[in-house]
């Protein structure tokens, strides 16, 4: 079912249309968020909050952008807000941030990657929030720069610079950690 048909059904019956949207996009949005925050529990919270926001504002969606871009924007903003809050909270915590990240990845029961994959995820977690978002969207989801630009509301030039910096930091981190 394409997005136009989905939105038409939503206009006819809000609950039915919204359920179709959740069926179609929740998995993509889940993985989009999960790659940025890693933990399943946190991803679940962010995804549910994002979907609630979608429900609240779907009636105002005018179709000026793609539905999936709009959904990605909501999920990304929700994730960035969450990450910023978490960063502020960790700023006041006494524990070492790098160590907390390592422990979070190591203790995640839903992570089944190899040692090198674990190191990569830890390196990604150490990136500033926006760079992390750019890197995951470009590297893992292979979104085009203009799509990321629409989602984050940033220029393509700035995104390329962000990706380059993120890339270099991860490369350096991996070289140092092994």
């Amino acid at each position, binding site marked *: 079912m394409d997005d136009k048909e989905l939105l038409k059904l939503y206009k006819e019956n809000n609950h039915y249309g919204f359920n179709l949207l959740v069926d179609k996009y929740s998995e993509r949005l*889940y993985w989009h968020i999960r790659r940025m925050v890693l933990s*399943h529990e946190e991803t679940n919270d962010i995804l549910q909050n994002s979907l609630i926001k979608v429900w609240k504002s779907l009636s105002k969606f005018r179709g000026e952008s793609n539905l999936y871009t709009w959904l990605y924007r909501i999920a990304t903003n929700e994730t960035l807000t969450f990450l910023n809050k978490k960063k502020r909270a960790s700023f006041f915590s006494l524990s070492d941030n790098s160590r907390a990240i390592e422990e979070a990845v190591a203790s995640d029961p839903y*992570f*089944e990657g190899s040692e090198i994959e674990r190191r990569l995820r830890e390196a990604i977690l150490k990136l500033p929030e926006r760079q992390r978002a750019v890197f995951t969207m470009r590297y893992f989801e292979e979104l085009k720069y203009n799509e990321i630009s629409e989602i984050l509301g940033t220029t393509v030039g700035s995104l390329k610079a962000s990706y380059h910096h993120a890339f270099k930091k991860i*490369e350096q981190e991996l070289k140092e950690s*092994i």
Partner: protein
Amino acid sequence: MMEKRFEINKMGEESGFRKNPFTIPDGYFDTLKESVANKIAYKERFSLWEIIKPQLALISTFAAIFLFGYIAISIVGSKMWGERRDSESGTQLLSQELIEAREFFLEPRTIDFLNEEQFSVSEGEQAPTLEELIAYVEDNFDLVTLSSVEFK
């Protein structure tokens, strides 16, 4: 071999870096829709207005009680104060009226006006009788005013 593994430019599909190392609890997406629906229902039930409403009701009640109390105290207070003031300074009010009456009647111009205009009789008109003058004064001036007027 190690060098090749950490060349991030070559971290494509073949490196396995892009493969998903995460798992999710069984049946997670089956229950997600229901969880979201429950949260939406809960949020709609306990929206901001629903949270504010009882607090607003409480504030309104206190405000109403305060207002009624204030009005009641104002009415009773002013009544008591008014009675006290009347009894204590009734003469003060009377003297104020007297001052005003005096200002009106004892003003030279007023007396002149009364002498010359109001009570003057033009030719052809019949002069008012004494009874008519007394009746006019009784109708138009009170006793207090009259007692304060000194005719020269």
